[in-house]
């Protein structure tokens, strides 16, 4: 079965559960770069957040294409698209707080915000252009 462009209900529920994602971008030399990420499904988009100065923002400014794999055992959803810079400043801090609450809870998120506020956070979003999932989620 090939990829499709939209999530079905089971795929969406799988992505909405708290799981890490493996996000691939492309390095300047054309090699892939893989990081474990917090992410959030927001409508038909995926949002993630990072800090300026890291590899991902540099890579995405040059080549916005991303591939995100989320899995649990052999059950998986992979989505792909082109990421755009969606928020900076206070809006990006609000996004990372939202992500921190999703993954670590309110108390831990509140503690982490002190550190996040020392960074130049930036949020990215991508419209899901391709979805490929394990058979049990199709």
């Amino acid at each position, binding site marked *: 079965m090939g990829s499709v462009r939209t999530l079905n209900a089971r795929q969406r529920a799988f992505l909405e559960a708290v799981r890490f994602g493996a996000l691939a971008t492309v390095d300047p030399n054309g090699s*892939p770069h893989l990081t474990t990420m917090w992410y959030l499904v927001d409508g038909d988009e995926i949002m993630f957040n990072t800090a300026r100065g890291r590899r991902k923002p540099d890579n995405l400014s040059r080549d916005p294409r991303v591939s995100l794999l989320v899995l649990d055992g052999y059950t998986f959803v992979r989505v792909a698209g082109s990421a755009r810079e969606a928020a900076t400043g206070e809006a990006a801090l609000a996004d990372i707080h939202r992500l921190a609450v999703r993954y670590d809870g309110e108390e831990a998120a509140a503690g982490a915000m002190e550190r996040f506020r020392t960074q130049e956070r930036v949020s990215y979003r991508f419209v899901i252009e391709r979805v490929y999932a394990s058979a049990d989620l199709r």
Partner: protein
Amino acid sequence: MPSGYGVPKGRTGMLTWTEVRAALEKSGRFWIATTNPNGGPHVIQQWGAWLDDRFYFEAGTTPAGRRTSRATSASSSRATTATWRSSSTASRGPHRSPTAALAERIVRSYTARYKRKYGYAPTVSSWDEGGLYVVTPAKILAWVVARFNKSATKLTFG
């Protein structure tokens, strides 16, 4: 690790290569990022084997399989608990003709991991026409998920 993750500068809590290698050798599922023919990134989960500090995996000899010869980044999660995550940037390339002794060891590793549960085991002739790839780590970032800030460790290889 990049600044901003809250990882202390001291060595306390860091992982040793022995610990990381043990986790990689035990892992049965690996995440591999490749690039598509159009240059875009692509992530998959893959079976494989760590032997002698190298990662071997099968990708077939189809166009899709050959694409994975460009793999340069891999991650590992250990079983369902995902206790460890590691990634490596590596030199890469197809390993088209392993010696018989190496092929036998790779077969044994695959068999031990995957035969009983999934009924899969390659043979020593499985890669006579190619389809076996090797990743030699250049850098590994490793941590224990439950104590990321204290355990995050970067290991580099000469």
